[in-house]
């Protein structure tokens, strides 16, 4: 089966490419891929901003990111005419800034100090995804306004499911716009109207139950929060929707990242199908940590048989060990090839770019350059 291949240079050299989103399940090397793509683009002349989420400490340091300050900072050591800025996402700060941007200072203060807001902004499953989306919209608006960057590369949060990134804004929207929120705010909103009275009658029973279960103070905090938040919500949703449609733009490209393991490839499959369903442009799949051998003609079976024969000799111990090592490697190579073929069988049109497994971690610009070279092969 022939797999279509792709080359990252075609993507980053095209001035129409304005946003690249690297997504995939947790632990597959999304951050490294995003950083490598951004660095390569910058060194080929683009003005790039890369937003990383939770990078490894040494990788962050290599890009001059020593603290989480939520603002892009220039990366030094870039070769050529382009430029690279990098940032780490601070989700709580992004959320706070969003509230401050949409509410007057008194109301913002009220929201920021509410215990429900604090829970929502720091640990709602999905806040990080939502805030990554919000920050992306923000960076894009900034670059449209002053031309600071002509390419934004984003890493996505380390959730188990790659789909979380796309689902979070909708989930947050459904949630904030849900019937329950409507109910909690209904008495204030529809007082005096016919329908309001009916809702209020049901609401009495309902708050009774809630008070019993969660306690009166909690319910009061909750209503205060929902009341204050409700006024802001329209603005939030508009922005989330605008950013979401930005992702469907032809200037956006998704790079799906995976490793040759069943779980990661299954997630990659879901994601590829979802992108197609949403009309979001897929550049291709990056398959990280692919095991290779320079002697693929020597199969695992042959190597093991050779090692077996050498075990009788006096001097062959080292070579036997090397052959066993090669056999283990070839087993991995074969298993990974099989998994990659299965993915391509299911998605024959998705181009695949393989990045070999490195013996050590990638933690400096040279390491990122090396990844970049593989992405362009």
């Amino acid at each position, binding site marked *: 089966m022939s797999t279509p291949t792709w080359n990252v240079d075609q993507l980053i050299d095209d001035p129409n490419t304005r946003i690249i989103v690297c997504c995939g*399940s947790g*632990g597959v090397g999304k951050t490294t891929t995003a950083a490598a793509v951004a660095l390569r683009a910058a060194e080929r002349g683009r003005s790039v901003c890369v937003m990383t989420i939770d990078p490894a400490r040494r990788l962050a340091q290599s890009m001059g990111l020593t603290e989480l300050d939520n603002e892009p900072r220039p990366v030094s050591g870039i070769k050529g005419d382009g430029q690279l800025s990098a940032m780490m996402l601070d989700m709580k700060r992004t959320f706070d800034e969003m509230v401050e941007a949409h509410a007057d200072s008194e109301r913002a203060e009220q929201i920021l100090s509410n*215990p429900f807001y604090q829970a929502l902004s720091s*640990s709602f499953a999905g806040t990080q995804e939502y805030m990554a989306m919000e920050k992306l919209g923000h960076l894009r608006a900034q670059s449209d306004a002053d031309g600071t960057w002509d390419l934004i590369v984003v890493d996505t949060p380390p959730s188990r499911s790659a789909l979380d990134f796309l689902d979070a804004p909708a989930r947050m929207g459904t949630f904030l716009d849900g019937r329950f929120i409507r109910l909690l705010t209904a008495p204030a909103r529809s007082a005096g109207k016919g329908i309001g009275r009916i809702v209020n009658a049901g609401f009495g029973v309902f708050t009774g139950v*809630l008070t019993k279960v969660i306690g009166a103070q909690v319910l009061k905090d909750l209503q205060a929060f929902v009341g204050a938040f409700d006024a802001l919500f329209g603005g939030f949703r508009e922005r989330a929707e605008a950013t979401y449609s930005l992702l469907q733009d032809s200037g956006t490209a998704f790079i799906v990242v995976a490793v040759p393991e069943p779980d990661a490839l299954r997630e990659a499959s879901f994601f590829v199908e979802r992108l197609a369903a949403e009309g979001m442009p897929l550049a291709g799949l990056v398959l990280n940590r692919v095991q290779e051998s320079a*002697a693929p003609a020597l199969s695992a079976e042959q190597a093991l048989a050779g090692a077996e024969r050498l075990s009788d000799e006096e001097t062959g111990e080292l070579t036997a*060990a*090397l052959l066993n090592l090669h056999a283990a490697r070839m087993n991995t190579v074969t298993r990974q090839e099989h998994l990659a073929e299965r993915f391509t069988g299911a998605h024959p049109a998705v181009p695949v770019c393989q990045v070999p497994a490195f013996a050590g971690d990638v933690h400096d610009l040279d390491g990122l350059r090396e990844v970049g070279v593989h992405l362009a092969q």
Partner: protein
Amino acid sequence: MSVRAEAGYPRSMPTDDIRLHVVSGKGGTGKTTVAAALALALATKGKRTLLVEVEGRQGIAQLFDVPPLPHDERKVAVAPGGGEVFALAIDTEEALLDYLDMFYNMRRAGSMLRTMGAVEFATTIAPGLRDVLLTGKFCEATKRTEKGQYVYDAVVVDAPPTGRVTRFLNVNREVSGIAKVGPIRTQADSVMRVLNSPQTAVHLVTVLEEMPVQETIDGVQALRESNLPVGHIIVNMSRTPLLDSAALEEAAEGTLDRSQIAADLKAAGVVGRRGASTAVVVDALVDEARDHAERVTLEEGELIRLEPLELPVAQLPLLDDGIDLAGLYSLAQSLREQGLA
């Protein structure tokens, strides 16, 4: 492994008294697999264990190759010696309804809340409440007795990842910001009594790479600051060095005897007339040996970084063929040999 022996780690913690095992780890380190293997290991010799999933991903069902688990405890595997592993995928909404039923006899009111979207609301907006329900459910299973006997000899939880597990377990702190008094607070307090007791151990799964090891170190610190009992560090997918230390050194320095290797390969009949070219194979083997040596050095370095934690370390091998049921049983055996069960 020699590094561990030299470091003088305790071989293991006494696990006899531990009945609730919480397994966490960075994404991609295989915590679900380890949790499943631990549940199997603890069930060996006629015991009964419960394996609990809290993130609604149906990872356990995939591992044991059974249909998706309902919100209901059911048997998924038989352990060596006649033990049984039950599994439960906690559904937060169902747990809330159970909770209403159990404490208020209010299942019907619960259904009403559900149609109004309140259940989704409660489990979404206040992660603390959600965690109270999840932790409450498995703490209840841990404490549950029938005719004066524990229903489960041990409960193993496939918990949220390291970065979130302290917050998840530390429901009391989370909830105290929201509910200062009232039934939810009472429930949270009772959960914390189980979690802070010597019956509980939180194990962290890692692989020997920079990020997961760093996250493990940070995670242990966070758990300790919250008085949560840390059990084992479980190093997953560890590679057994296939070369002795002299050969590893030569491989790293590129001083392996190439002509000897070439001669051996010919003697073994794997190169030559119909086989691959000798020079290509020698180069490949030398390169692969160097990669292996680099990897071993890196892993030993990461293992040393775990030493200051002063925790028992168990190691599970990387399975070349990926994880299947047979692989799970062999990992379970390995956990038993290392004193985790």
